[in-house]
């Protein structure tokens, strides 16, 4: 694809290979970059040419307009992943949280929009990505779901998502008849937003060592259901329970790590204060 760069708003549309090239060029120029930031992708001459032709690269280096966003990618305090599944699409958006944060939004046609976003606007960005909006309230009820069913809803294969939705529709039918009908008809969205970060004072060998906050929601025009752990401690049972956009916004506006979450070491980092505005 052709790179499209809007310098006025600091947003560039590109494909994954071109993004990897941009990140590697920025990471090579960033002395404090996290060792995992470099993508290890092979150098891509076409991507470099496209980035240069559109002004994203100036004299071989990323333009200053994108510097704060690329700095967030190179040295994030936390990572964001937002997956939005529907009958016809699976979008995977990525984010890097720091003094100024950055988001790589999945456009859905193989291209992505990369831009910086002030960290306090990250909840708004998630709300836009998942299309959080006013919804009818569902009545009381609860539906137990399995990890396999949830994996099916988030499967890249359209057919598997459709089959998972059929199974979910059946499960919803007794407590939430209207929502069940919509899910069976394909009028559903299941999304999950996860912010994760390294626990202070502990080494991270894999994603399993990270601390995270997650919000997962099944959204239909008949109402919303949130994914919650249920049952006795350790039972690992998952349920979908009625929720509201207000409750979801409560969780999204609290999803960023606080100073305490990031630990004393992070408090020494001048970038750190921007992620915790909840002291008021």
């Amino acid at each position, binding site marked *: 694809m052709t790179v499209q760069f809007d310098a006025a708003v600091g947003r560039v549309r590109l494909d994954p290979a071109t993004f990897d090239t941009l990140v590697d060029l920025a990471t090579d120029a960033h002395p404090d970059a996290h060792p995992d930031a470099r993508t290890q992708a092979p150098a891509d001459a076409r991507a470099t040419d496209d980035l240069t032709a559109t002004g994203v690269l100036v004299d071989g280096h990323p333009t200053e307009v994108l510097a704060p966003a690329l700095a967030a990618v190179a040295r994030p305090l936390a990572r964001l992943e937002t997956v939005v599944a529907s009958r016809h699409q699976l979008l995977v958006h990525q984010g890097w949280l720091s003094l100024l944060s950055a988001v790589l939004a999945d456009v859905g046609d193989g291209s992505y929009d990369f831009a910086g976003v002030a960290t*306090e606007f990250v909840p*708004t960005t998630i709300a836009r990505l998942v299309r959080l*909006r*006013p919804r009818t309230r569902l009545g009381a009820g609860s539906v137990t779901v399995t990890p396999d069913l949830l994996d099916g809803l988030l499967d890249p294969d359209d057919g598997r998502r459709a089959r998972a939705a059929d199974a979910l529709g059946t499960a919803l039918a007794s407590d939430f008849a209207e929502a069940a009908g919509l899910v069976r008809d394909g009028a559903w969205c299941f999304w999950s937003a996860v912010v994760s970060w390294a626990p202070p004072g502990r080494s991270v060998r894999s994603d399993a060592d990270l601390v995270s906050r997650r919000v997962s929601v099944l959204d239909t025009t008949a109402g919303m259901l949130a994914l919650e752990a249920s049952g006795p401690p350790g039972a690992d049972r998952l349920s979908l329970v009625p929720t509201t956009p*207000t409750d979801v916004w*409560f969780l999204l506006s609290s999803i960023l790590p606080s100073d305490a979450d990031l630990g004393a070491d992070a408090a020494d980092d001048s970038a750190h204060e921007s992620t915790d*505005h*909840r*002291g*008021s």
Partner: protein
Amino acid sequence: MSLPLPGDPRREVVADGAVTLLVPDAWETVHHPHGGVELVVVEPEQEGLFRANLVLTVTPVEMSLRDWQVGTESYLAAHLADYVPLDAERLAVGGLPGLRRLATYATDDNRSVTVEQRATVVDGRGVTLTATTSTLAWAAQGELLAHVFGSLVVDPAAGRGSA
């Protein structure tokens, strides 16, 4: 009832007695800053942080609650930067049929704020109570704001000459 921090509640009576509510005592209060605005209550200054605030307006409204709020929503969407409507529901406001909305937008100095608003119409007057906080502080201030909204009372028999 009692409010959580930052202090004891203080009862404010406005619009010639038509509207009463409890506000945090430590918050700064301005009465009638300009036409239609009965009351502004602002959180104490904290360095660098957005000051949460409450605004109560009483204005003439010669239409239904629904039509008024449809127009209000259009106005907010057209005039507030990065406006995202998050929630809307019908519920009792001050003891009368009303509407609640939740939204977020960017202030003129590019701060993310969350705004919660409750509105009702009584005898040709629209009563609106708006709470605005930093988005990242909204969850922490939710209980306080719930107490403020819960304390709102609108008396249809009082203050007919104030609008």
